[in-house]
């Protein structure tokens, strides 16, 4: 039997199913990562080939070089052709890329927290679970406290900091899934 749902009801139903199945989220995340990583490697080679040993690469590595973007856009094809629109297009807005430097990561989180949560809550009020209160909220506060000295110490995120951040994420993931069981 087919049940007809209104769009809002379908969205609510989807949310209910998704929030009730964290493993589905993880599966989707991993599946998309498996697609994204090799594609990104192709794009990386395209960018590296184009930049070569030029001085332009220094500017591109350090920040934003619009002239180079335009040049790459004009010469790229296939996946490479999506690079510039992705960086300065809709993704820039959704990720709050007013500043395309490191600040956008924090900006993106703020958008996710306030924007996405707000939109979802308008559609369907969200209950706060015990897991969220005990694990997620303290984790968010703790991460901010850890990140501040980590990021300010050398005004850059180097390899060591990167490893540390990934390690923290692994700990957090382990706690979440351990708690879920």
């Amino acid at each position: 039997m087919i049940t007809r749902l209104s769009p809002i009801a379908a969205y609510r139903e989807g949310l209910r199913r998704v929030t009730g199945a964290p493993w589905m989220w993880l599966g989707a995340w991993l599946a998309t990562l498996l697609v994204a990583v090799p594609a990104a490697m192709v794009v990386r080679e395209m960018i590296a080939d184009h930049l070569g040993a030029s001085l332009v690469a220094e500017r591109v590595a350090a920040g934003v070089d619009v002239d180079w973007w335009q040049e790459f856009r004009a010469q790229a094809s296939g996946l490479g052709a999506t690079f510039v629109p992705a960086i300065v297009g809709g993704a820039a807005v959704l990720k709050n890329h007013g500043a395309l430097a490191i600040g956008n990561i924090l900006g993106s989180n703020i958008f996710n927290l306030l924007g996405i949560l707000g939109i979802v809550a308008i559609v369907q009020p969200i209950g706060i679970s015990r897991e969220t209160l005990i694990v997620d909220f303290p984790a968010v506060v703790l991460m901010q406290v850890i990140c501040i000295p980590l990021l300010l110490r050398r005004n850059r995120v180097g390899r060591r900091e990167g490893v540390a951040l990934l390690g923290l994420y692994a700990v957090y993931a382990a706690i979440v899934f351990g708690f879920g069981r």
Partner: protein
Amino acid sequence: MVKPGIRRVLASALAVTAWYGLSTMPRAQPAGAAAPAPAAAREAVAPATVVRSPRNANYSIDASLDPRTRTISGRGVITWRNVTSHDASELRLHLYWNAFKNTRSTFLQERLRAASPADRRALLTRPLDDFGHTTISAVRLVGAGAAPPVDLTSGVHAIQPDDGNADDETLVRVPLPAPVGPGQTVNVEVEWTARVPRTFARTGVVGNYYFVGQWFPKVAVLGERGWISHQFHASTEFFSDFGVYDVRLRVPSGWVVGATGLAQPPRENGDGTTTHRFLQEDVHDFAWTTSPDYVVREERFEHAGLPPVDMRLLLQPEHASQADRYFAATGAALRYYGEWFGAYPYGHITVIDPAWQSGTGGMEYPTLFTGGTRWLSPRTTSQPEGVTIHEAGHQFWYGMVATNEFEHAWMDEGFNSFSTSRALDELMPVRFHSERFFGGFLPWVIDDITQPRATDGNGWPRYRRDAKSDIPSTPSWRYWPGTSASITYSKTALWLHTLERMLGWQTLQRVLSTYFERYAFHHPSPEQFFAVANEVSGQDLTWFFDEVVGSADVFDYGVDRLTSARRTVRGIVDRDGKKVAVGAEPLGDVYETQVVARRYGEAIFPVDLLVRFEDGSEQRVRWDGRDRWRLFTFERQAQAISAEVDPDRVLLLDTNFTNNSRTLAPQGRAAATKWSLRWMVWLQDLLLTYGFFA
């Protein structure tokens, strides 16, 4: 017999011609027996104090708009003087709106040919109600005094000198009963009706908003080598002679009207319509607009050393808050173009803010132009400033210098693009890139990305894409329609900016102001500009113009190799009269740096090569850029760290800046890793989003 109404039109036309034009006209016997202006008509028109142009194509027009049927009924007298040294046995009239009559016109055929599949589909499925046309119902040669007019209507027929497309009716020939000799004048009365199209190209109607350009039968330009008359093409605009315009427009009462020229007091007709009259001397076209919805603002431009200009702004109500931006941008054009090239002489200008989705934005006409903006337009972006400066700037290059846009479109659009980006930099030194979403409704400013004049302002990305598409010296109407703007606007702006960097702004400014002063109101040719550039700069720049205007060759210089190591020798050397084998032996405390610079493109330009060394020193050498490659060798105590050709970016036409440099500490892979990871996050977000909704 001439109807009384026609007599009034004729009398008015001749009055205009008499007052404004006779002072410059040769006193030859008029071939068409032009009638003297009746005294009564003279009183209506104030005499001009300065005659700036030849005034050989003068118009007196009565036109009436019926919004219910979207038609314009017009009647006018063209007073045309032959300014060439040979007889004219015919007149040629442009009927531009016939480009929108059906899809077989040359204009729409060219549009279709160059369109993307989606655009092509959209064009081919436009509602039938969108199409428009101009139909001439009568043409008469009007004689002097009581002499009866000579009906020429039966001889009028469409011609297609460019492509032989028999379906194209944008140009008609009007055979004359007797030739018009050099310096002689004819008066030709024309009656026509036109259906206003839903905009195909910058003229038309949407709702109650009318923007009416290229709307009346307009006489073509007769040159020494015959008629310079072309059909209406997708890639080019217009060309016509200067004259005096006296135009009376009958529209519904209560509707606001803006037009070329100075408005005279309107007259209520008592039938729900009002007649608005506009007069203008020394212009080569006339456009107008009307709508009941306009919000009118007025302001005066004043700047030391320049004549004041009354600015009249007709705004869409939803854009009323942007009036100051329109005025500031128009004022910037009047100021900077005035200071750099020559003063705007007309004393008034009308700025039109076009209706949403009217398709009429960004178009220039004498003393009037359309800008364009959005309801949401952040002040750190250049909308409406960019388009406003550009169209106001056309008053100088298109309006006054008035080059042949059919054949040398780059002389107007390119010169103006260069000037626009320069003036915009003065008005808005910093402006940011923005993206628009939801059909352009929602803007998002990305304040990491500024819009530099040299590249964005000159349209560098567009040029790069189409650099080889056409040779600029090809008649512009023959450019491939899909890429014509890249050559006309961007390539010209880039080579003018390159000239600025070569010669210095002061010299280029003197070149442009001399050209403007010498040829305003006289339709100069490319050769006349080149001659001025050579004369004022004191250099023979022919080689440069041959490259940038006379060819489609691209410029691309680069550094192919950079090595820098201690000087060593390995092998057999002569030492103390003996042959000695040595293995990588140092030859003093010297680094040998070798740079191979290459010319990848066909075009040639002298460039500098800059080599930087690790001790902070630099060495700069000049390369004439002629050979395909050249080896440069430097011997120093320090190792080189980088080499760069054209380090100051003088040559803005270089199609590949990335290959201009090379370093011994390349960062390409680090940069690629950083940005590809960012792209990966975007891709994963995209996939997750699709996955969520799937």
